[in-house]
């Protein structure tokens, strides 16, 4: 077993065929989503805090086929030697399990998501409350079923709240995919693979502020307006779910 021979997944070719079929479907103006949702309907969200006892705070989130666990450690002594600073540091890391995707992956760190998660949370955390120390936010994607980053962001802010880190507001995040003229909210992995464009928003609903926004594909201003409204509305609803989840453990 020292050197593993080259292997391949038997379902690869099947997937490829399915994806091509799906792309044809998405070109039509009218199609139904595989999970039966309407275009502007999010997947049912399940969130719980206290997923791991070793951490200062943790949360588990399950949105359809996307399952994420986030642990928060600290505030604790920084590992990196630091200059004098009167604010704390936030350190984020996102990694995937090898079995999170249909074909077995490498299970490595996801640098891009790590830095995006950092930016989405940074503005919500009151860093001045833990000077000279670091709060570590580690996310592990158990299963990737689409809209991974928004789920990670929402789950991480729940874990931060669970850890008792001072925040201005919870951060909830939702993305939309664009197919021709259609906007599809909270896309699954299959939908994301064929999208024309995407827009993701992370926001602090109570303050009505956007902490992170990314956009790919070609968009007109009117379309951006529409997509942002859709996302912000969904973020608001998601934040209510997160709030009630936090209240549940408190009572």
């Amino acid at each position: 077993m020292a050197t593993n021979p080259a292997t391949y997944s038997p379902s690869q070719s099947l997937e490829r065929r399915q994806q091509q079929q799906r792309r044809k479907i998405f070109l039509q103006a009218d199609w139904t989503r595989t999970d039966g949702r309407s275009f502007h309907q999010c997947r049912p969200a399940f969130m719980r805090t206290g997923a791991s006892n070793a951490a200062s705070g943790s949360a588990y989130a399950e949105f359809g086929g996307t399952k994420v666990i986030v642990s928060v450690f600290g505030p604790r002594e920084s590992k990196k030697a630091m200059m004098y600073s009167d604010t704390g540091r936030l350190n984020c890391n996102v990694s995937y399990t090898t079995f999170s995707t249909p074909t077995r992956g490498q299970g490595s760190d996801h640098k891009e998501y790590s830095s995006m998660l950092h930016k989405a949370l940074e503005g919500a955390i009151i860093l001045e409350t833990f000077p000279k120390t670091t709060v570590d936010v580690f996310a592990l994607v158990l299963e990737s079923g689409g809209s991974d980053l928004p789920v990670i962001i929402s789950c991480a802010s729940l874990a931060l709240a669970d850890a008792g880190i001072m925040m201005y507001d919870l951060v909830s995040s939702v993305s939309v995919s664009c197919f021709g003229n259609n906007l599809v909210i909270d896309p699954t992995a299959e939908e994301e693979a064929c999208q024309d464009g995407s827009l993701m928003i992370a926001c602090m609903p109570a303050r009505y502020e956007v902490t992170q926004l990314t956009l790919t594909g070609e968009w007109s201003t009117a379309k951006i307006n529409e997509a942002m409204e859709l996302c912000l509305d969904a973020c608001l609803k998601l934040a209510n779910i997160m709030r009630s989840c936090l209240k549940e453990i408190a009572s």
Partner: protein
Amino acid sequence: MVGLSTGEKHFIHGGIAQDLRSDGRKRLHFRPISVETGVIPQANGSARVRLGATDVIVSIKAELGKPNSFQPDKGKVAIFIDCSPTAAPEFEGRGGEELSSELSVALERCFLGGKTGTGAGIDLSSLIVVEGKVCWDLYIDGLVISSDGNLLDALAAAIKVALSNTGIPKVNVDLGASPDDQPEVDVSDEEFLQFDTSGVPVVVTLTKVGRHYIVDATLEEESQMSSAVSVSVNRHGHICGLTKRGGAGLDPSVILDMISVAKHVSQNLISVLDSEIAAAEANADE
């Protein structure tokens, strides 16, 4: 990264509030931009762009490759940015890695469009040679030589200029007898096809300092930002990509406002770049 004293920070904030920045610019002024093309002869296209003291080089190499099985009718483009230790001592070793990957990701988002390739500044289907068999792989490599803020806009401008300078060799294809054979490809050394750059967008980063936002921030101004929005806009005024940087939250209406300002500024930038490209090519021809 040199820190700033409270007095200096205060001075920068004040200047932006009064619409007179430390180097005399107004909030929506760019620094003088200078463009050179063909700086790397062995590449298919290259450009050096200086924006004040920010200095970047981009080279584009085209190599023949095999298209992705999921997208047999498209070529591939990869963007890599490297922050050289000459720009700042902290880029030494792995120090620049985080910034490099952040810039690469942001540029890919701005130039390559959505998953299906809509809104891509670089038309991937024009890179195909034989469908499903042979395509061009474009390697876009950026090097940050000197950094005085606004790297993303400078790199994006350099990519745009380099693409307009890129010649892709003409290819004669000899399809094999059976469809399974790998087609034989003959790459011409003399004939080059010019790359169509009409759809390539520019990136405008609006940096929010205090209650106002500015374009083309210097390093000192960037250190004072609360957040920034990088918008990539093409010639038609369509948004082709957007990234928010910096942690602080923004009101959605402010973001929409910033997008419309970026759209306006970008059209100026595109025309400035167009004339600079023309001048640079005239220079190169001399």
